[in-house]
């Protein structure tokens, strides 16, 4: 199956089964990419995993994303079908004021820590996650550091001036 055929067949199946939830699909470099409405994301993911033809049973990656207008957050899934060696990317976006989507931990066990990391970095709340708390940063932290509005640098340093280092 070539990449274009894969794009078309997933496209067809998703429009057939989830009428109207497939917002957008395109080919980005060598990856078929699908943007799904967040209301249906859990159903779509579990369909993609359990469909006998597609069978994306391997969750390669899950990460957070912030759109350029800084008003929306997103979650990006990379799925892989090992026997047929097919890969797709699934995206979903939601407003920053209400960052809540259903968890994927009941579809893939591997999603557990990846979702915790996404929560830690972007503050995305995964509904139904068994243990949603910070994983890499300290629990007391009150910012979501990877959002664009927060600075990268350590704020306690006073020996680096803007003039010299362009911070």
């Amino acid at each position: 199956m070539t990449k274009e055929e894969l794009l078309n067949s997933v496209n067809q199946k998703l429009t057939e089964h989830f009428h109207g939830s497939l917002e957008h699909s395109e080919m980005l470099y060598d990856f078929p990419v699908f943007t799904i409405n967040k209301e249906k994301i859990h159903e779509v993911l579990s369909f993609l995993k359990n469909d006998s033809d597609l069978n994306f049973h391997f969750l390669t990656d899950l990460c957070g994303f912030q759109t350029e207008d800084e008003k929306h957050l997103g979650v990006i899934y990379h799925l892989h079908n090992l026997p047929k060696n097919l890969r797709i990317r699934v995206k979903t976006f939601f407003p920053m004021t209400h960052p809540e989507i259903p968890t994927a931990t009941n579809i893939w066990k591997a999603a557990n820590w990846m979702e915790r990391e996404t929560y830690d970095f972007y503050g995305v709340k995964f509904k139904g996650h068994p243990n949603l708390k910070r994983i890499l940063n300290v629990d007391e932290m009150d910012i979501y550091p990877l959002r664009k509005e927060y600075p990268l640098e350590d704020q306690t340093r006073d020996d680096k001036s803007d003039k010299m280092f362009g911070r």
Partner: protein
Amino acid sequence: MAKKQNKNITAEEVVAETTAPKTKKKEKLVTPAFDPENMVEEKEFSTLNLGPTHPATHGIFQNVLQMDGEIIHDAVSTIGYIHRAFEKLAERRPFYQITTITDRLNYCSSPINNFGWHMTVEKLIKAEMPKRAEYMRVIIMELSRIADHLICNSVIGVDTGAMTGFLYIFQWREKIYDIFESICGARLTTNIGRIGGFDKDFSPRTWELIRNFIKEYPKGLKEFANLLERNKIFMDRTVNCGPISAELALEYSFTGPNLRAAGVDYDVRVMNPYSSYQDFDFIVPIGTAGDTYDRFMVRQEEMWQSLRIIEQALKNMPDGPTHANIPSFYLPPKEEVYNNMEALIYHFKIVMGESEVPKGEVYHCVEGGNGELGFYLVSDGGRTPYRLHFRRPCFIYYQAYPEMIKGRMLSDAIITMSSMNVIAGELDA
């Protein structure tokens, strides 16, 4: 004896209990008479805090274990003790400077990370790579795979009480470092190569070092294998220790040697060939049980296969340029910078990180030392990536660790961890 009510509580509750301020109740001590006939079997769990600075964990991982005697009943892992914010840092650095950050991901095999990142950017800018540069990359990547597996396997030896293998094999690791050093000047965090290939061809001395290495190393590896592979004590310790089934491994998104040890022949080098891996003939070794011994043996065999790949690469090394024709990423030679206006402009642009990149998003993965190392790069056409996410294999498979050690001995948990090759830098990003 007061009746214990803690039969079904999890380790998390125990952690909460131990950290909560204690209020001491005054109780009268009543010692019941000892009655062997009417003993009620009671289970009493103890909590053991393993880490973060435990000598046997090789890095900083914390595991709070709920122990039933010597058996682990439940475990909770805490990570993040060296979280360094790679992803945020990468959003503020020009593309060529990110190579430096990737060095520190899996620092046992930095060149693989470097090349993985270079290939991601090359994919984004659609650069055509010359064969010679790809073959040179393959040689370095396989050398660093050997270096990575050497650390892991010798450390399994150390944890099972065999220091000898570690001391013997590290001499050979130093020889790999010598090769890296002659190419780029650094030993561990190599920062090797450029986006688009290499800055120059290897020197004759480097070629000689590589040839000598593949000629002599089999002797050293054989010696190491003789020490451990069929060693009765080593086998008793590692066979059936911390096994994981193929189904569970896939569910937890295992990749690399750990997945192959469980019996799934997934190798990025074969499935999605990059850097001309399709030209080479090699075997993907797999195990059956997914236990510590299988993981050890898969890594041993991979080292032999790496040697085969290097031999083939040396034999079939094509001639030609060592870098792609992408002047906006490749620093021009110094003579041209001094004598040619255009070269000077490129030099300036590259050093200031102002090279133009197209808008787009790519995912590229390479077979790292411990699994599929992926780079998800979103570029908005600016001088830095808009978003760069590293798919870190350790981070993803380490979450299965509590499940792998449940119901097993504490001493097995230690070697299970060292055989999984969890690298703290990669785990915590």
